[in-house]
């Protein structure tokens, strides 16, 4: 076994996979990667199944050292500076971190979360079918909390196979798509129109539980209290302050504020990648259009392994990296026409 030893990391760095199912009824939310598409891409780059566990790096920097052997890693998600012993390493490809070498990541530049895929996966004991850390519940594996300096993860030694690359993530523009309900009838039609027309900013008090939005105060004509009901990932609550709260992976499972709508699965990762201070708008889709968009997104996600290409072995030359960048172009999760790289 090789090891990946954690150096200085920001507070929001943790092991995450596609999350756990079956325990919502006990008040335990799924946890799991905030950007499922980037998780699947990081995994595709190291030959892991899409939902496998990876390391989710939050908005701050992070450092890791390989020990007892080489490990093959990949980086995918929010752009940030990445170096191995001071030499730049590009995102959206796999690479080998030799024993004793140090991977240093800077703060996120155009998003929040970057994923480190790990060839052979992370050794751990699934808790209700998942390794994902749920910090508030105190569960996850192999370490039941966010990572901290000095932690060490057992990972298989790097294989002899080729490194792989994908076109880099290019954050999509356009409004975040939602489906209205189930308590949209708590709001006057004019107020829903105001909600959809407004420019919202991600407020500082945002984390894996949920993101607060700052903007115009939204009035609930029928009041801000409902008899508590279930809460889905991406649902948008309007509490008494009139400022929306979007509930995310580590959310409470039930709540008593009216929910005006919910972000569709295809746009959840893009929303979660919006850093504090970023502005965004919402657009409402009917349920059929939303589910069609989600099916296209899922097909794109499931097709990621087939979209990878092999890199020549050895350390990448600057010419090779340049060629990769020129060939890669933009990757758009919803538009497979942007995926060719030949």
């Amino acid at each position, binding site marked *: 076994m090789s090891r990946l030893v954690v150096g200085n990391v920001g507070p929001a760095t943790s092991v995450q996979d596609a999350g756990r199912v079956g325990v*919502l*009824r*006990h008040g335990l939310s799924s946890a799991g990667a905030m950007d499922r598409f980037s998780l699947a891409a990081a995994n595709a780059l190291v030959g892991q199944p899409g939902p496998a566990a990876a390391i989710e790096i939050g908005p701050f920097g992070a450092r890791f050292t390989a020990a007892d052997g080489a490990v093959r890693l990949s980086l995918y998600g929010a752009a940030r500076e990445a170096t191995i012993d001071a030499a730049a390493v590009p995102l959206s490809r796999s690479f080998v971190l030799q024993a004793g070498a140090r991977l240093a990541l800077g703060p996120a530049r155009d998003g929040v979360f970057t994923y480190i895929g790990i060839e052979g996966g992370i050794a751990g004991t699934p808790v209700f079918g998942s390794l994902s850390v749920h910090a508030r519940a105190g569960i996850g594996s192999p370490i039941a909390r966010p990572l901290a300096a000095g932690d060490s993860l057992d990972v298989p030694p790097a294989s002899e196979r080729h490194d792989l690359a994908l076109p880099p993530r290019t954050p999509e523009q356009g409004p975040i798509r939602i489906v209205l309900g189930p308590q949209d009838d708590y709001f006057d039609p004019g107020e829903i129109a105001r909600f959809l027309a407004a420019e919202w900013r991600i407020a500082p008090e945002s984390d894996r539980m949920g993101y607060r939005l700052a903007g115009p105060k939204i009035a609930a004509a029928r009041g801000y209290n*409902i008899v*508590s009901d*279930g809460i*889905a990932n991406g649902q948008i609550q309007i509490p008494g302050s009139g400022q929306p709260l979007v509930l995310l992976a580590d959310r409470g499972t039930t*709540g008593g504020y009216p929910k005006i709508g919910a972000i569709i*699965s295809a746009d959840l990762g893009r929303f979660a990648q919006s850093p504090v201070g970023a502005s965004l708008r919402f657009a409402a889709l009917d349920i059929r259009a939303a589910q069609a968009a989600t099916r296209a997104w*899922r097909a794109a996600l499931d097709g990621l392994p087939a979209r990878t290409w092999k890199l020549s072995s050895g350390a990448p030359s600057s010419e090779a990296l340049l060629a990769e960048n020129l060939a890669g172009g933009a990757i758009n999760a919803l538009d497979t026409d942007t995926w060719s790289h030949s």
Partner: protein
Amino acid sequence: MQLPPTFRILPCGDAALSVEFGQTVDPAVNAQVLGLDAELGARPPKGVIETVPTYRSLFVQYDPVATGFEELAAELKARAAAAAPLAKSAKRWRIPVVYGGERGPDLDDVARRHELTTREVIRRHSACVYRIYMIGFTPGFAYLGGLDPTIATPRRDMPRALTPAGAIMIGGVQACVQCLAAPSGWHILGQTPVRNFQPSRKPVFLMATGDEVVFDAIEPREWAALARAAERGEPVAERVPA
């Protein structure tokens, strides 16, 4: 069962929906929710991943690649119409509680508001048979129905930033057994060493929605031994005949 006129099925985004039987806290409505939950548990429809019974609605998480909203809603409506309400509880749990003092800082205030002795509030709170209407908010937090209406108390004007693990609280006509420490505007009458959710224990979760709960007032000197037992992974909550 006869579907109420308020029955409706509403999207919660593209991968979940809410089967809403009503909009109020009502044992009959909750029994309908639990009836459909049991029916779906026994014969899961295509695409259904998991369900969450709540006071008045059943939350259904599903895979929109395997099924569509309209298709699933039609199936769920038919199932709801065919399912029998589930009014009888399978399990009853007796939960030890230290009332008042530092473990129940709002007991005196609740007694004063109702012009009762603290002893009488304890008697009334521990004389009820509660039903778990919903588990949610935080892991293992049990929302209870069945509080004696004579001690129902509107929520505090100033919510607390943190209430302790095991807090036994009331808020309006609702009562609860809290598991993890969390913010709350409810009144803390006491505390139990029981942990409904404990990751290192088998089973991790003790009580389920639909189970019954009764409270047993214990002396503060009994606390330490029970808390140690709970930490060792013993349930401490006792199964008693319903």
